[in-house]
């Protein structure tokens, strides 16, 4: 094959691979990262649920959740 054809073929292969690589894998998404309870009295226990979604194309594993 002549040089120009080879480099065009390689470019085409890379252009197809890059988007595929960029999207492969799990993707964690939280629509809400902060929450304020507002004014709370000392005797209240405040609770909240943060929702999240796997926007990726492979299984998402939450390995650990730690609090300050």
């Amino acid at each position, binding site marked *: 094959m002549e040089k120009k054809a080879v480099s065009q073929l390689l470019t085409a292969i890379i252009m197809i691979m890059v988007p595929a690589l960029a999207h492969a*894998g*799990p*993707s*964690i998404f*939280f629509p809400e*990262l*902060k*929450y*304020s*309870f*507002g*004014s*709370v*009295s*000392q*005797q*209240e*226990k*405040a*609770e*909240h*649920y*943060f*929702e*999240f*979604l*796997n*926007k*990726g*194309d*492979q*299984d*998402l*594993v*939450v*390995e*650990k*959740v*730690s*609090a*300050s």
Partner: protein
Amino acid sequence: MASLSHLKPGEKGKIHVTVDAAGKRGPISKTVQVFSNDPKQPVTTLTLTMLVRDALHIKPQAAAKIFEQPCSSCHVEQGRGKTGFELFRADCFMCHNAGTAGLSISLMSKKPEGYLRDVIRDGVENTPMPGWARGKGGPLTDAEIESLVKTIKKPN
């Protein structure tokens, strides 16, 4: 329904967070870190904030109220079975921390042992300091009071 730890593509999950406001006052903030196998976002930080109102210390109360609920769960129960510095930290520190209701430990350490013993046992009239001795309606034995006197007098 996805479990917290394992989500297929498109599945939703929830992280449950609780914040206990007991013993806190004013603006507080808590962060939670979520570690996952997302290669582009391996750690996500969630933030919770609140403003804790003090609903418990609003009106002046008789000093001995501290031995009843709800006051005793913060001011007395934490000290059960403790002596010395641990007892001081559980029962005394909250009010005697510099800037709050009572004398700081450095000022108290300059008082004679007899004075400290009497004040802890009998309290100080017309102040928020109650008598802590069992004979005065308080929770502490003579030995526990003695351990507090020694702790206060011990040079740092």
